[in-house]
């Protein structure tokens, strides 16, 4: 690899945006619309971030895909935007000209991006079935596959860990795009400004001992629930994964990991109250007879239209129980047992049983700059901002800005507004440092 370094390809842009979630897309569109040339680098095989994977979104309940795909398409077709997907960020440094030098590895898809036409013939002939993480693990995907129907770009990738190298995909591919010998390829993007839009990850359920470490059947994460509720979800309807039964009682557990130092996160994850209320409302539409209970500490419906949304859900019959859930257990009857400390009526430790339990797990930073970039994370692990009141997109590294959940959990509305702000700060920086 060392010998190649000198010949490594260098692409030049005005700005680079790390992360192709809704924050990164909005920032790049706002920069590109002003005439700046922008590179977007996305780790995943598709842009769109979490938002493209959601069912419907609070508080308007519009279909998430319907409002994400136009932005994905606008970025993909924009003459000033170049998107690099399935790329790993190696480092961001500044050179002597004060430009950012960003080292990136193009991970091998084992499918030639320029040849693949996204027809999925390879996918149909592939004999391997694996749990599809894009569907919460509830349905299957193949070892060579296009991530999902509205992924951008529509390009297949091969999963080398699970592929048996049977060669069927290679034979069927009409453009001869399958390439088993693809290697990772490093390249460099040089730019004068950069925006971090690396988003968040959900705390892994496996780490959550209190709630069964992922071992109790029918205890699922909120992101899995999004898939169960999506119009193009894994089942036809909302069913509980263990036995395909229609759940008659569903519990949502708030602050499962947030606002609780003992679980590692002392902060509030900010979106869980609202998405649980949203899921509860969608669920009561899908399963009108089911009992739906939200266990919470404080309902944080702070955004525009959110309180009204919360009140509507209560009026629709969603039960809200103030209490901290301490423990979950499986039971022989196929139900999940729940022990919680009630802060209502007579209080004390209470128990309840539900067919399906959805956890609002805490949100963690999507990326750690340690060893890759000189920007500092704050005590909460998210990217630190230096002027949170007057310029919330500014980091402690000159020319490097932050947008969206990368600087702390955030809903889509706040993310998009902040992404605009980051683009504005970056444009001003580009202007100050002399743009032709």
């Amino acid at each position: 690899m060392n010998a190649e370094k000198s010949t490594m390809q260098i692409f030049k842009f005005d700005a680079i945006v790390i992360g192709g979630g809704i924050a990164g897309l909005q920032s790049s569109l706002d920069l590109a619309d002003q005439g700046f040339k922008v590179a977007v680098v996305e780790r995943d095989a598709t842009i769109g971030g979490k938002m493209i994977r959601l069912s419907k979104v609070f508080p308007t309940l519009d279909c998430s895909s319907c409002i994400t795909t136009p932005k994905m398409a606008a970025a993909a077709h924009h003459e000033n935007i170049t998107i690099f997907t399935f790329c790993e960020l190696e480092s961001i440094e500044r050179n002597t000209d004060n430009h950012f030098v960003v080292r990136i590895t193009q991970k091998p898809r084992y499918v030639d991006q320029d040849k693949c036409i996204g027809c999925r013939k390879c996918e149909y002939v592939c004999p391997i079935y694996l749990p599809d993480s894009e569907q919460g693990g509830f349905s299957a995907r193949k070892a060579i596959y296009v991530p999902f129907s509205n992924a951008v770009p529509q390009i297949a990738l091969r999963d080398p860990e699970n592929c048996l190298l049977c060669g069927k995909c290679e034979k069927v591919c009409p453009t001869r795009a399958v390439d088993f010998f693809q290697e990772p390829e490093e390249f460099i993007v040089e730019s004068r400004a950069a925006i971090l839009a690396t988003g968040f990850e959900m705390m892994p359920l496996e780490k959550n001992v209190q709630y069964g470490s992922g071992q109790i059947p029918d205890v699922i994460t909120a992101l899995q629930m999004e898939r169960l509720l999506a119009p193009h979800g894994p089942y036809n309807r909302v069913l509980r994964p263990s036995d395909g039964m229609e759940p008659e009682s569903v519990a949502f557990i708030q602050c499962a990991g947030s606002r609780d130092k003992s679980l590692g996160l002392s902060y509030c994850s900010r979106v869980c109250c609202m998405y649980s209320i949203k899921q509860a409302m969608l669920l009561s539409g899908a399963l009108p007879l089911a009992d739906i209970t939200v266990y919470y500490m404080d309902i944080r419906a702070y955004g525009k239209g959110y309180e009204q949304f919360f009140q509507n859900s209560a009026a629709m019959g969603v039960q809200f129980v103030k209490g901290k859930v301490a423990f979950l257990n499986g039971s022989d009857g196929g139900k999940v047992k729940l022990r919680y400390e009630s802060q209502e009526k007579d209080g004390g430790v209470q128990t309840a049983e539900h067919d399906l339990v959805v956890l609002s797990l805490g949100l963690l930073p999507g990326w750690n700059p340690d060893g890759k970039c000189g920007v500092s994370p704050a005590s909460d692990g998210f990217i630190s901002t230096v002027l949170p009141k007057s310029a919330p997109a500014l980091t402690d590294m000159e020319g490097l800005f932050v947008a969206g959940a990368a600087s702390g959990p955030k809903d889509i509305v706040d993310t998009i507004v902040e992404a605009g702000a980051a683009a504005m700060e970056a444009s001003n920086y580009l202007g100050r440092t002399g743009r032709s």
Partner: protein
Amino acid sequence: MKRVTKVVSSDSRVGVYICHCGGNISDHVDVNAVCEKISNLDGVRTAKTNSFMCSDPGQEMIIEDLRSGEIDRVVVASCAPSLHEATFRNALSRAGVNPYLYEHANIREQVSWVHHGEAATLKAERLIAAAVAKARLLKPLDPIRIEAKRHATIIGGGIAGLKAAKDLSSRGIEVVLIEKSPFLGGWTAMLDTLAPTGEKAADLVSSLAREVLEHPLVTIHSCSQVTGFEGSVGSFRLEVQKGPSDSGVPPVKDRGIFIPFRGYLPEEDEQPCKAFVVETGVIVIATGFKPYHPKNGEYGFAEFEEVVTLPRFIRMLAERDAGEGPLSIGGKEIKNIAMIHCVGSRHIPGIHEEDESGKLNEHCSRNCCSATLHAARLVRDRFPGTHVFEFYRDIRTYGRFQEDLYSKASESNVIFLRFEPESPPVVSRNPRADGSSLKVAVNDTLTFGERVEVPADLVVLSVGMQPSDVSDLIEMMKLPVGADGFLQEIHPKLRPVELSVAGIVLAGTCQAPMDTGEASAAGSAAAVKASAILAKGYVELDPFIAEVDLEKCRGNGECVKACLRQGALYLKDFDLHGEKVRKAQVDPVLCTGCGACVAVCPENAVDIRGWTISQYEAMVEAIARES
């Protein structure tokens, strides 16, 4: 026999290109047979196939046929238009042909991937025939271009407005900022230290105000209000009235000064009262909020002088000498403070009482929890002898580092009591002569509904945020307002700072409650939209708008009535052959191209460019025809 008479200019020459998509289409559709049939259609000069139309050789084929003059318009039958319509329009442009002389037939997602066998072939043929039928009727179109003056006007000089002014001027855009009051800084200037960071509001306002004042591209008009509005995106015209200053402060020279709990007073204008006109390309509305004013008797407000609002209390605390001694009111020591949350917020119909205008504030005001906790902590830090009791419904410390405020308040022994909206705390005189003059009683749900009475020397009401009164601007500019009374964006996620009036954007708390950091971000987000509009000096809009055929139009005005976008269609008097006639006209800036007008015209005189009714009719005929 079924030949339909065509209203087509006979000279349209269509080239049809059918994609195999490497078997994706050709495995199910007999592409060659379709090509053969299509080449016999009227108006088709050539029909060709290729394994990948989107490839360079595929596109070259089109470009060559266009350049040679054999064809003058194109149909490509391939995958979904979302994937490659833009690719092929581009190819037309490269061949020097208007890109709108193009029609797409979707025979992959809507044929070969969903149908099989002969049926798939027949359907592909019908869809292509329909595309040809439309293509024959296509006309060249040009995007609509509107000149835009590189100038922005910001209404409101709070944090959001100042931030937008700073950003836009940094982009080299001329800015006029219109502020109603004599001061800059809005409500932020009425605060002391800010939750949760603890920084001084005065520093925040002063540094931002100075930066804006010093920028050569910014002109600030304080004590000014917009009194007239006309025009559209790119060229608005505002009438502004500047009144006398009622700051009560002697005029300042140079850069101006910050006056605590008033705001930043800019340098005085020589000519105090005047009316003037501002010509501008975009308008940023940043008119902010006003705190809820409690009703007389609400939690004892205006009934007991010991009941104050949070803004008042923040000022009391700040103005209290740093010296020793306990916190006091009217010479009397304050031993106990009761702080009541959600005053004027989170109203529930049926539980809370409407105001005189029948309005409830159903929204959460977002800032008050943190601001209240912050004030409580300051009290506990500075006056350890003063106890603080907080009466709340939910503590909403949602934002970054706000939760710390909550836990630190608990650690510093602030006592929390939780109430249900149905049984709010009751403030009354304390009959006992044991000290505190007031008491606050509540059913505390944290102690399982126990009735608790708390003595209080001072009661602080955490008042919510309401939109400031901008009914004049709403009326003038036709600004949309939400059910909560705040200005309403087009779409909270797709276009969160834009209003349905093109060229007017929203910044800050005139849209919804926000804290100062969020208002700053909103100011920047509004600025970046404004900057994008003004970047090129012109605005380019889709050509797909309504078009009136003046020959057919008889000026009956049905379309104007049906128009969903006020002003997009209007009747105008023309001189036609010496005769005065009245006909419909389209404002290309306002028209969104929805077509609501098309359906109602009795003369069929209106159409949407690129999507005309006759094109649809031709397509339906082609589809209905047996092959």
